[in-house]
């Protein structure tokens, strides 16, 4: 009989195998120039978010300081993006708003995916009347387009950025619930899940050890591609006037600020809009690349 | 042997680009078929039998596939040199193909009539002469009417009762065996010179398999068809064909008449393959498998590709074996034998 391999050797081999799988994924992702652009630009945005107080020339403007003498100045060396109607430096406010936009996106996507995955997973695995009940509730949320319901809920909760995040999360989870449910339902039919049942696994073991790990990739893909849309939706609520209240430098609200003076003082609305675009575009590029790696079926 | 063979494949090399490297899927396939032959191409998964079959109508996706060397001669003309348009016309006129899975090879959204009539029209006429569905000139109507009649005739030919009525059905309304019959009808629409059948009964139940093989045998007799039958099932070979070529890892290793092959297999792989099938004479625990695994085709073994698994391996097996002619009909690619002719 051959000499038994020691645990250490086996573990070493395991690491090699995993590293190899990881490298393949990385290779596919890296060979996609667009997603690399998206990733780099996002990294820059994250750095910007943390370093904003040190980079912004007038960080106090983001906290509401006004300069009556410097109202409505067009872009110049002093004020790269110009100033708004109370003389605040738009460049500083845009930079200081980066962190907020990122935070809003992250909170919404995490809240929505946690609620959605839990509900969808339970519905699909339990089946029967539990499934019926949960899915009917999900359907009710899906009957009205997300933005409309988000407006209604946020309005009822009261204006403010926290309520925007709650409102959007509350209408965003059904998408995750539907996705998770369909994933779990099809995984439940897979032979390896049946085999797990066949060796005597408990329900919890089947769900957490066999089904959910295999459902993870598409959920992550959806999280990454939804991120941009969540940021856009939050900005829309800000634009309507339901979101962050002045003087918070929220990009959507800033566009709303500039609207009445558009197009004569075009810079007030233009630059925050471009900032939203850069963030959303970066996320979309990244999400598209992630989809290639994690969900190879979608792009061959 | 003076006449030009119907089909001659010479030294065909095919590569496939994969993540792990370039797989040498076919490495010098040689195969000859005369008009009227019913030839089985037999082998296990990954031996390249389907790729060889698909190389004839040039249906291998390229990329990732790439033919690096060799010829596919049909009555002497090299198919690999034809332009895509010429090839499409050639397929329509001279070839018929049936595939393994009858459920996926019919388009689910169109009626059998629509698909069968198109098959008739495009095989009988040049593609640019086929009228569009919205063309109501008398010529177009006549063509469609004739195609419809031909379709009914074909349905009867493949043994579908009330063929005329069933033309209006959709594929999902047919059982698996019936769908395979429809596919055979489509393949025969233009009276092809050569029918290539790629595992035509593998997805079917045994009793249905018997029906379809019976149909193919009848058609061979009735229409004087030449058939290239690709299969992994030695039983199907024995029941249906007269000649057989055995493939292993991208090469033909033995060619012979069916009778001779089963009575007198020469290549160690062929011997192993035949012994691996349980028959009524196999005693309990008397089955022999072939040890080892099929090689990874990105790094195939040197020389004879079977030598790492061969019980009779010798030093010379490091070289690619030439064809040895044991009789007029029996060829083997193995260093164990000498030319008898």
């Amino acid at each position, binding site marked *: 009989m051959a000499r038994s391999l020691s645990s250490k050797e086996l573990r070493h081999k395991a690491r090699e195998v995993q590293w190899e799988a990881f490298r393949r994924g990385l290779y596919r992702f890296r060979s996609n120039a667009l997603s690399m652009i998206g990733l780099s630009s996002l990294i820059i945005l994250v750095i910007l978010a943390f370093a904003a107080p040190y980079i912004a020339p007038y960080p106090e403007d983001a906290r509401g300081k006004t300069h009556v003498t410097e109202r409505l100045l067009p872009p110049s060396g002093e004020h790269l993006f110009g100033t708004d109607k109370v003389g605040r430096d738009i460049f500083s406010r845009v930079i200081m708003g980066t962190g907020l936009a990122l935070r809003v996106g992250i909170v919404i996507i995490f809240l929505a995916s946690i609620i959605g995955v839990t509900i969808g997973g339970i519905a699909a695995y339990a089946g029967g009347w539990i499934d019926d009940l949960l899915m009917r509730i999900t359907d009710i949320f899906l009957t009205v387009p997300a933005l*409309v319901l988000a407006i209604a809920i946020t309005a009822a909760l009261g204006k403010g950025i926290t309520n925007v995040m709650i409102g959007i999360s509350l209408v965003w989870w059904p998408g995750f619930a539907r996705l998770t449910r369909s994933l779990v339902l099809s995984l439940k039919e897979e032979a390896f899940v049946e085999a797990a049942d066949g060796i005597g696994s408990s329900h919890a073991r089947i769900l957490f050890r066999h089904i959910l790990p295999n459902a993870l990739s598409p959920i992550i893909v959806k999280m990454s591609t939804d991120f941009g849309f969540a940021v856009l939706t939050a900005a829309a609520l800000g634009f309507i006037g*339901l979101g962050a209240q002045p003087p918070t430098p929220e990009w959507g609200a800033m566009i709303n600020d500039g609207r009445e003076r558009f197009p004569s003082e075009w810079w007030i609305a233009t630059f925050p809009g471009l900032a939203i675009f850069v963030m959303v575009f970066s996320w*979309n590029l990244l999400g598209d690349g992630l989809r290639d790696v994690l969900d190879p079926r979608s792009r061959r | 042997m003076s006449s030009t063979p119907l089909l001659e494949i010479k030294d065909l090399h095919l590569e496939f680009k994969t993540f792990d490297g370039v797989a040498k899927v076919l490495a010098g396939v040689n195969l000859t078929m005369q008009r009227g032959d019913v030839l089985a191409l037999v082998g296990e998964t990954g031996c390249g039998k389907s790729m060889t079959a698909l190389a004839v109508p040039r249906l291998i996706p390229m990329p990732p596939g790439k033919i690096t060397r060799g010829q596919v001669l049909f009555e002497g003309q090299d198919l690999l040199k034809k332009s895509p348009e010429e090839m499409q016309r050639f397929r329509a006129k001279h070839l018929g193909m049936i595939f393994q899975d009858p459920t996926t090879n019919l388009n689910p959204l169109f009626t059998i009539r629509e698909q069968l009539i198109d098959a008739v029209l495009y095989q009988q006429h040049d593609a640019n002469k086929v009228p569009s569905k919205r063309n109501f000139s008398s010529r177009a109507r006549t063509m469609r009417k004739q195609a419809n009649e031909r379709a009914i005739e074909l349905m009867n030919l493949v043994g579908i009762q009330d063929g005329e009525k069933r033309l209006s059905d959709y594929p999902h309304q047919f059982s698996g065996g019936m769908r395979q019959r429809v596919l055979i009808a489509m393949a025969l629409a233009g009276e092809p010179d050569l029918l290539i059948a790629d595992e035509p009964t593998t997805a079917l139940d045994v009793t249905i398999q018997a029906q379809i093989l019976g149909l193919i045998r009848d058609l061979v007799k009735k229409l004087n068809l030449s058939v290239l039958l690709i299969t992994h099932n030695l039983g199907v070979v024995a029941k249906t064909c007269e000649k057989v070529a055995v493939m292993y890892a991208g090469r033909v290793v033995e060619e012979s008449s069916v009778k001779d092959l089963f009575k007198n297999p020469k290549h160690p792989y062929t011997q192993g393959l035949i012994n691996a099938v349980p028959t009524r004479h196999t005693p309990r625990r008397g089955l022999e498998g072939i040890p080892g695994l099929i090689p990874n085709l990105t790094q195939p073994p040197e020389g004879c590709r079977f030598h790492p698994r061969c019980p009779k391996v010798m030093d010379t097996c490091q070289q690619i074996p030439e064809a040895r002619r044991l009789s007029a009909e029996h060829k083997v690619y193995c260093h164990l034998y000498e030319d008898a002719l």
Partner: protein
Amino acid sequence: MKLGSYFLRRLLLLIPLLFGLSLLTFTVSRILPGDPVGLAAGPQATEEIKESLRKEFGLDKPLPVQYLSYIGNLFRGEWGQSLYSRREVASDLKVYFPATLELTLAAILFAGIFGTLLGVVSALNRNKLPDHLARVVVLFFVSFPAFWLAMMFQLVFGLALDWFPIGKRLNILMTPPQTITGLYLLDSILTWNWKAFRMAAWHLFIPALVLSFGALASITRITRANMLEALDKDFVRMERALGMPDRVVIFKYVLRNAFIATLTIIALEFGWLMAGAVLVETIFDWPGLGLYIVESSLRLDFQPIMGITIIYGIVFSLVNIFTDMAYGLLDPRIRYG
């Protein structure tokens, strides 16, 4: 006919769904914090005035009673009154809804046509330049906030180039076509009013275009993926083996297979666009549900909010039902049962 009974079943299922929806919006608008009466009555209002307002709107009754009476009224076609304008919600909806519908329909038409086209081109040129280009372009346009893009388009095409009007459904001076459906384009065709048709189309073009970008990316991507999947099917190889030319294989046989799956996405995107219309309407002064809901939300005017969400719910559900039925007509395998 199976299709009929399927339709009936779906319509019946709509009833509990709308009940649920009304309950949801009712809960949201009545139980959550915020003081609509206070807002409506104004800051100077005395407690008595507020009290009488509450009584007038039935807000003094227990919540279940309020809900039941609301539902009862709903069935009688009485959708309540705005706290603010005192106008009937139902008649407001009748005015605003067709405008939104027309805008959304035009946008989904653009997105459907261009998305499918781009998707097909992408798939047929897989991993070549046109494919990559299409991918970037649609990702680019979907990444803009619709309201901001609307402003920019207004600036460029309306003010700078003066090619298109900058807002509203028609010139202020023009009388709209006689109302039949409320969709100006359709009404002007029905009344043979070509001048109104041209004018309405001219006004509609830019808002619909801006709106359509939101749906372009996913329609393109799905069409591309479906095309590739369909091209990979066994029957495509079979059709080629039969000697059919590629144009027949692709445009007759593959396209229908790909389009069926795209249809579902188009229905889904219809809902997304109808919501997106809210934002585009505010920019282009488009007298639709968008402006209505924004104003009502800011004032916590709950009767219109409920009415609007229910209208959205009905329309979106109907769109889904119709898509499912179209799906069934295109795919003979679907059995309604």
